[in-house]
């Protein structure tokens, strides 16, 4: 299943281009490291299954 692993370097390069965030070469490796770290930390959240009825609780009051 190694093919299913996201290519983080490509993710960083493409997404940064899409949102117009220039990332200087000297910052790039650490940005990739931090996206990898974020992916690992996000796993417990991504593993949770939520009911369709569960909506967020916004505080915006019209």
């Amino acid at each position, binding site marked *: 299943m190694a093919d299913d692993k996201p290519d983080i370097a490509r*993710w*960083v390069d493409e*997404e*940064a281009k899409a*949102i*117009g*965030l*220039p*990332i*200087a070469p000297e*910052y790039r490796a*650490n*940005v990739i*490291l*931090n*996206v990898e*770290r*974020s992916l690992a*930390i*996000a*796993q*417990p*959240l*991504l*593993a*949770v299954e*939520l009911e369709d009825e*569960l*909506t*967020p*609780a916004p*505080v*915006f*009051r019209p």
Partner: protein
Amino acid sequence: MSDPLSKAATAAEIARAVAGGKAKASAVVEAALTRIDVTEPTVNAFTDIVAERARKRAAEIDAGRHRGPLMGVPFAVKNLFDIEGLPTRAGSKINVDGPKARRDGALVRRLEAAGAVLVGGLNMGEYAYDFTGENAHYGPSRNPHDPTRMTGGSSGGSGAAVASGEVPLALGSDTNGSIRVPSSLCGLFGLKPTYGRLSRAGSFPFVDAFDHLGPLARSTEDLALSFDAMQGWDPDDPVCTDRDPEPTALSLGEGIDGLRIAVAGDYFARGGEPEAFEAVATVAKALGATRTVILPQAAAARSAAYVITAMEGAQLHLPRLRTRPQDFDPETRERFMAGALLPGSWYVKAQRFRRHYRANVLKVFDEVDIVLAPATPASAPKIGQAMMKLDGVELSVRANLGVFTQPISFIGLPVVAVPTRQPGAMPIGVQVIARPYNEQAALRVAAHLEKQGVCVATPA
């Protein structure tokens, strides 16, 4: 009773002395300014000192122009609070080029209306994205109990200023633990109130979904007096509650009778050094708390808090990341950049999960009034230390100092961080957690622990 001019004096002792004519506000403020002058080379807590403003205010108090429960009490604020006439640094270099604040932040105004005297702005981790108290632009704040060690952050200057005795009271902000972490590492009492309880108007934001403001002090009474002075609706903060203020100072001495107190198990009982769990056990024993409760899915809560923080924080700073990346602290820059690249579906899921987790945790508070948990997984690491060993696993200090605070602020529960300290060791704190808007119960428990001598904050 401490000499009101000494570093050991609490805010309450100073206010009583000034109100009773036993001390002049001008003398108290002058003594604080002298201590700041002497202590700063060691602790690096302040980035801005407003000596002339403070002297003028103190003279007005002595002339009978301002009275109140914090009369003559010198205090300082994390430099993300607006101070009239100064740029609001928020720990950054970039903001110094921005506009100067046209008025003080809401909580600064409320404390001064209660008679307190602002003496300056305090060092912090850049844009509050920090648990260490280190800062590449202004240097690290240093732990007064051992200046080779971290204060914790991001309200690091707030921790250092109060723990060193420069001032008895400081304000900080807490998004994921930034009041509770420095309180733990510096051996202080800290209050992170219920989300929305205190106005955030006139403070530089980080993550609107979790940003809280609150006090750090060396006594529970000082937390209560300042909290009471700062409560109340403010139309300038859209999440500020319109509930009536619920004063806490007068009920501090009521003890813990009738309060059901439990220790958080599972997630909160692993992943830290033994000292963190020993601190909880010491406090639990003093309170007679034998019950254990589980806050379900706390690991996912920490994960969701991380995602929302990374993404909201990055979105806030995206224009500056595009135009002035070289002017960020290297320790925040690439974390912010990474946060800008995460998928939007993560953010929405984290917000949906937040409601689910809140509902389940509130069920626990049907059974108990107070839950105890570690404040930090370890006592203060060395300044510059990147990794620490927790439960035998080598982990990043920056990412992990807040593992026990994040799942609590994620749903806005009020917490008092209380200090413990073993002989010869650095301090370490415990979170006293209550249900929303029940700051009073957490403060009563903290006051009881203080009275028993189990939790004591002494200036270094």
